[in-house]
């Protein structure tokens, strides 16, 4: 019997309504970020606000890309007016170098995190060795400690290693954060791959390295992409460790530099938002490129279902 029409319509309306609220909740701030980056300071502080730019302008972006050529000193720092978008924060010239730092650190962390986690997860998930369970629990235990509790010990370790104010300090630190979690994710994924595929690979002539390369990695593409994205975004967004471990602009990352704009004598929200738009471009590109790999059903047909 077909369901009555009224409940179906009500259900459809409710679903649409809640979906719309959810989309607004998630995408609203991003939309405002983009919209306000194209407006002058005067426009974005207007009440009621202009949700869509009345006079769209890329002046904020131009300011970012020309900042390196403009010297801001104590004397000339008031050369621009915040309300007309000509104001330039003192650290504006550091934005693009910081972005380059974030990118370099993010890529190193993503790559090394994958390399370390994949091999560790394979060993724990597939190879039966003494101490396997203890290894797993030790890895997980490192993630129970809140990051903030690790700041001082890590600072001391990094300082004693002579790595303060270097990109390496952040790479090492972010790996300590991302690797345990990625191992945990990959173990679950590897354990979901039929054991007979591992057995078949070993019989066919694979040692552990080849079994990992030829069987586990191709079938774990969604988990690998998720791990890659997770590691990149974690290092891209991280603030506390970056603040403590890097104290000069040569090694500072995007979140530190952008936060510096807000703490300046005058804050240009339109400029900060333009910087924010630039900051979200790499993660968005990454999500767009990799989302097609995050699919299920890669092991379909491998074993009797």
């Amino acid at each position, binding site marked *: 019997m077909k369901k009555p029409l009224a409940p179906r319509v009500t259900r459809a309306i409710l679903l649409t309504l809640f979906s719309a609220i959810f989309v607004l909740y998630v995408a609203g701030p991003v939309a405002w970020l983009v919209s306000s980056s194209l407006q002058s300071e005067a426009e974005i502080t207007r009440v009621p606000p202009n949700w869509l730019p009345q006079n769209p302008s890329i002046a904020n972006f131009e300011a970012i890309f020309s900042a390196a050529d403009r010297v801001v000193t104590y004397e000339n720092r008031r050369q621009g007016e915040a309300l007309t978008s000509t104001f330039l924060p003192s650290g504006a010239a550091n934005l693009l170098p910081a972005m380059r730092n974030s990118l370099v650190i993010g890529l190193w962390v993503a790559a090394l995190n994958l390399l370390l986690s994949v091999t560790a997860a394979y060993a724990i998930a597939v190879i*039966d060795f003494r101490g396997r369970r203890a290894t797993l629990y030790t890895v997980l235990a490192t993630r129970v400690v809140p990051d903030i509790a690790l700041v001082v010990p890590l600072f001391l370790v990094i300082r004693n290693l002579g790595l303060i104010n270097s990109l390496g300090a952040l790479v090492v630190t972010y790996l300590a954060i991302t690797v345990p979690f990625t191992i945990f994710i990959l173990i679950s994924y590897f354990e979901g791959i*039929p054991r*007979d*595929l591992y*057995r*078949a*690979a*070993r*019989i*066919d*002539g*694979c*040692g552990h390295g*080849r079994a990992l390369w*030829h*069987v586990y990695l*191709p*079938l774990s593409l969604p988990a690998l992409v998720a791990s890659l994205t997770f590691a990149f975004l974690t290092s891209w967004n991280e603030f506390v460790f970056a603040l403590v471990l890097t104290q000069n602009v040569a090694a500072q990352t995007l979140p530190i530099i952008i936060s510096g704009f807000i703490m300046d004598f005058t804050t240009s929200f339109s400029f900060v938002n333009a910087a924010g738009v630039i900051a979200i471009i790499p993660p968005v590109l990454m999500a767009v490129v990799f989302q097609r790999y995050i699919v299920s059903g*890669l*092991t*379909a*047909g*491998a*074993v*009797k279902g």
Partner: protein
Amino acid sequence: MARITCAALTKSYGAVLAVDALDLSIGHGEFMVLLGPSGCGKTTTLNMIAGLEEISAGRLLFDETEVTWTPPHKREVAMVFQSYALYPNKTVRENIAFPLRLRGQSASEIERAVGAAAEQLEITHLLGRRPNELSGGQRQRVALGRAIVRKPSVFLMDEPLSNLDATLRLSMRGLIKRLHQELKATFVYVTHDQAEAMTLADRIAVMKGGLIQQLDTPEGIYERPGNIFVAGFLGSPPINLVEGVIADGAFIRGDFRLPLSKPPEEGRAVVLGLRPEDVSAGGDVAARVELVSPLGSETHLDVLAEGGVALTLRVPKEWRAAPGDRLSFGIDPARLHIFDKASETRL
């Protein structure tokens, strides 16, 4: 071809003994079937031969070479799994070629070998497909192709037909037998299906509780079961087992009396084994028909004989009987199996 020697091969998981000091010698080119119920240790034994399970104690030799600690990829064995275990991200061609690629063979050699294997298994038209586009039977053929393409000296098969339907199982059984005849390699085949074991094996090792209960040819196992377990495991319908004693050179249970050709000592408690088909028309054993199960080519009769002895008989379809009918049949004393009741071994 290779000769496989298992010397006191043992596998334990903590306190649980899965395979208990198994001694087994499998000859060059022999088709050995490990037969037994779930948990009897047959697959564990196969995995130890493959190198997929670490051997807890004992030795394993291929010909004269000890391979006890040799990893699976260096043993030169091929294996076919119950679950097919095809690489889902590779096409049929890539699946079959995979072991050859790992051995660094040239592209032309691989192409030739894959083509030959595919032709032998009649799957040439499937070479471009992926495993999820194949039926169960086709997948198992591909798994066989991946095994034969390497021309290994030892083939290991872990219940390869268990996931197939009855008709397909029959044709695949024939295919495996043909492959064995053509390849002349040593086959070790694990199954719990007695029909597969009987039709394929040169010799059968019947296993239970990690031990070999009997090692013999299919005929030997069927005709001369070494104990009650083996007698009961082979045969469909299963052998009739009746407890009783020996008196006056005959098996006695209440009013049920059967003279024996070679009776054990008087007064011994025994178990009589009678295969359902070992009866003939018009003998002196009287019984009442309880249930008639016609199968077309033959008929199964459940009867109640003297002394309340319940028997299942497998008789020609020409035997017409209905529930409640009285019938008499003959039993050849030479076809009876007598087991000691206490030790359950053949007397």
